[in-house]
């Protein structure tokens, strides 16, 4: 299960896509009430829809730092080392990315999409997380099934 060019491309795509998120979620954990955090999480100049929105976003930040980020980092190391467990963890990180962004599609799209426009929304604001999640998951299926790609 040695890494191929495609493996490297997926890991790099994951790092580029997820690092800003992990940074923003760290800001959420350290300075949850700051304007800088609001700018990062819900957009420049935006405010929380209500108090439950803020707490729900903070809950997601905890889940990202306790589970998603460690899964992505260890999974990426594992696939680059050519280990089968790496593909399991990498696929699990992809699953989380896909899952949370389906939730965000229903909760955040009506606020984020009009202000950011289709190009930004369907790329780095939301789209890349879905594309990376789906690709990471599908790629893990392919590699675990014994197909080299």
């Amino acid at each position, binding site marked *: 299960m040695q890494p191929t060019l495609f493996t490297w491309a997926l890991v790099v795509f994951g790092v580029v896509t997820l690092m800003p998120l992990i940074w923003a979620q760290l800001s959420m954990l350290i300075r949850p009430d700051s304007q800088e955090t609001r700018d990062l999480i819900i957009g420049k100049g935006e405010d929380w829809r209500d108090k439950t929105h803020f*707490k*729900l976003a903070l*809950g997601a930040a905890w889940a990202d730092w306790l589970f998603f980020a460690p*899964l992505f980092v260890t999974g990426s190391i594992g696939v680059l080392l050519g280990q089968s467990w790496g*593909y399991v963890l990498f696929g*699990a990180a992809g699953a989380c990315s896909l899952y949370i962004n389906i939730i965000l599609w229903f*909760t955040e799209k009506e606020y984020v999409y009009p202000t950011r426009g289709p190009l930004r929304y369907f790329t780095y604001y939301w789209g890349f997380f879905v594309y990376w999640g789906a690709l990471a998951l599908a790629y*893990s299926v392919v590699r*675990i099934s014994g197909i080299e790609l």
Partner: protein
Amino acid sequence: MEVSAWFIVVFVLMWITGPLTQVLFLITPKLHHRLGLTETNALKPKFKWFLLGERATAYADMTHLVSGIAFIWLALLGYKSALIFGLYSCACYVYFALMVISRWLLLTKHGLNPAPRGQLVVYIPYMVLFLLFGLYGLFYLWGLAQL
């Protein structure tokens, strides 16, 4: 590849109590609420955004409703690709449980939780069960991936 019968049985039970109940929430939210599966005060107007989040989660849970079926079917046929569908469900269980427990604790701390304490006494252990099964599932499937 052989997945233990016990793992499949517990997986099916978790699938029934998890994503399958979310189908009920999407189809008949009032019945879901009457059965005590929704937070008691969640339907009140002041929890409009909270309820939107719950509905969004229910839609997302439809993905592991499908992945659960795929896992069981492929595992019974002995295909190794079953692993990834089991993995999807277990990863979602852990992620979701961590997110929901953190949210409930934060909302309770600030007096904003639509679930009264009596309901949380049941809800939190229920989520802890998903968390533990999800972690065990990841560990178990990881073991199978290495065979």
